[in-house]
């Protein structure tokens, strides 16, 4: 049982939960995730370990409500419990030892980028973050990222920071030169676009793939992604891969496998909420 210690709304559909998980807080490294099952009957869903407080024995989860399971989780209140939190899973981020890294976050991907930026800064790497959202209220974790270095904020409507997509800002930073590695996390089209931006510059680009998962330990193969033509399991071989080698078409396609179920489950849930 994992008690929710704190709950905060970060954007209209993104919520942070601080949850008891002392062992995971102790051993987790940046880039790793947990599999969460809210309670009996619920799905198992992967969520990045965004931050930890070893002393308090807690981990932070930042959750974007997109469907039944995520709505259910963000519907919990402080003091409620989550039945199962398993982890830490996945390979930790391969952190470069020095140089300049650009961390690009789109939407809830910014939450996945934050622990990476934090670890990079801690090991002395120069960090520039490029984060985006639809408009001002959708931008998350800007203050936190400022502690790691420069932050460039982009909004689609120009209501805050620069108007435009993160890819445009990323392109400019790359043009200035001196970028050793780019970490890009967000919706699949955004990660694909970032990888295309960096390809001509020959800058190594790491993306974090959000394929559909079940066990998170390599036993089902459901999370398989195609990397340079070969199948790899996102849960144990990833979730981070070289963006220049990822078959994004296959990934975004596989993410639609259960669309009908998902839409129906969400509609039913929202109907319950209104009733």
């Amino acid at each position, binding site marked *: 049982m994992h008690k929710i210690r704190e709950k905060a709304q970060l954007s209209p559909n993104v919520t942070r939960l601080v949850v008891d998980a002392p*062992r*995971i807080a102790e*051993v987790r490294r940046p880039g790793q995730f947990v599999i969460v*099952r809210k309670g009996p*009957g*619920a*799905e*198992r869903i992967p969520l990045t370990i965004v931050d930890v407080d070893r002393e308090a024995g807690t981990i932070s989860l930042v959750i974007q409500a997109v469907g*039944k*399971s995520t709505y259910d989780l963000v519907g919990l209140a402080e003091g409620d419990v989550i*039945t*199962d*939190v*398993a*982890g*830490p*899973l996945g390979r930790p981020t391969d952190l470069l030892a020095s140089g300049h890294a650009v961390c690009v976050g789109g939407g809830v991907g910014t939450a996945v980028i934050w622990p990476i930026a934090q670890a990079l800064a801690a090991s002395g790497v120069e960090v520039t973050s490029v984060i985006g959202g639809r408009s001002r209220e959708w931008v998350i974790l800007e203050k936190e990222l400022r502690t790691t270095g420069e932050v460039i904020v982009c909004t689609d409507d120009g209501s805050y920071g620069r108007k435009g997509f993160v890819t445009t800002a990323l392109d400019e930073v790359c043009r200035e030169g001196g970028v050793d590695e780019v970490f890009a996390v967000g919706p699949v089209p955004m990660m694909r676009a970032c990888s295309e931006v960096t390809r001509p510059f020959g800058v190594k680009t790491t993306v974090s793939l959000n394929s559909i998962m*079940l*066990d998170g*330990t*390599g*036993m*089902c*193969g*459901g999370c*398989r992604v*195609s990397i340079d033509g070969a*199948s790899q399991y996102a849960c*144990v071989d990833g979730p981070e891969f070289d963006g220049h080698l990822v078959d994004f078409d*296959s990934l975004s*396609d*596989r993410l*639609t*496998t*259960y669309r009908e*179920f*998902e839409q129906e*489950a969400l509609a039913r849930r929202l109907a319950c909420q209104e009733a």
Partner: protein
Amino acid sequence: MSTESEGVQALSGEQAVPLGRIPTKQRLAISRQTMPERGAEARSHTFDEVNLGFNAQIALLEAQRCLLCKQPHCVKGCPVGVDIPAFISRVAEGDLAGAAERLMACNTLPGVTGRVCPQETQCEGQCPRGATLRGVTGQPVGIGYLERYVADWAAVNVTGIPEPAPSSGRRVAVVGSGPAGLTAAGELVKHGHDVTVFEAFHSPGGVLVYGIPEFRLPKEIVHREVDRLVKQGVRIEYNAIIGRTFTLPELRKDYDAVFVAVGAGLPVFMDVPGENLKGVYSANEYLTRVNLMGAWMPDGETPVLSGKRVAVVGGGNVAMDAVRTARRLGAKDAVIVYRRSRAELPARAEEVHHAEQEGVRFDFLTAPLRVVGDDSRWVTGLECRRMELGEPDASGRRRPVPVEGSEFVLPCDTVVVAIGTRANPLLTSTAPDLNLNRWGYIETDDEGHSSMPGVFAGGDIVRGAATVILAMGDGKRVSGAIHRYLEGLPVS
């Protein structure tokens, strides 16, 4: 019930009698009792258990078929050496408590093995009543059915929990709660050791729960067993993935001994084009979604594709479970694609028989070449090639060789790949001192001791994908070795 047996009912069947009092000739006259089962049509739409179990009357008759051989070959056929004549003769005498005691002395999960063991190649395969005499093949004693009968009786009637043994002061970690881990935990706690089981999933049982479906092994039976262990003092930590949450060397430091029983859980794919299309599953994923996550239940939140035409590749128990599951999820056409012939099917005979009754089709001597999809990357078919049997291979089975020009597309919307599993490196890769064989399985000595002092292993992670009874046998045997190892440790 057959007419043949009716003549002997006056003496036997209706009343319990010591077997020795029934003349052999009369025992020989009783024919094998059939297992009552749910009708094939009705059951292919539900997950209720197919076999309904013997009633007292049928069990008595079946038990009275036993000839009490002087040299009981059946016992030799049992991987854990259950004293079969002893438990069966007690059933015949009506002493079910005695039967349960004899059965459980060697087998801690008889309710499970009575349902899932391949009896036809083990105990029943050795029974002289199944021999062929003058061209007539007999029917072996229904040892598995009787085992199940006694176990189910005991589950209701033998509820006492043994007095806890005095504490030995030793702590043992068991990794994995499949049949090997659960059996070892039960044995170790009896010796007074403090046992903690670490399980990666949120629920116990291993393959018994996430792999073998409800209609063959109701989860209730496994949960009942786990409850017993917990009442005896076994602690279970769920969501504890060894290799991630804790490493094996860490456990070794915190516990006096470790038993590793993590199974062989890594799926093997066919490595043919199209395997990443939507609608292609490993059997592990398909069965886990349905069984562990309850996708078949109306309120299960985990989705599974319920295809109308499902092709399952493989011929073992896993393939049979997947194809019968597909039928229950609503598949109109559920077909087994197997590259050898019927004679080589490795699945339990009863599973094949039940699958056929339920309308499953079999495409023998057929090998997949490619998964075919439409523009939106949904599966639309499985391109296959016909095979014929050539020369025997290393395993003595005739090797299938392709028939040139025999390619065809089997139309389907779901493909389930059930061609085997491998060792998962998650745990072993964090234990550099653990010796593995070239397939990644843990190497042990005859006692189950690995290359790391105090670390033992058993079940599928040592043998490769095997059987429930062998995993349990390992749990029992290796826990004995662990106990001796702990007794030999210097007093701290």
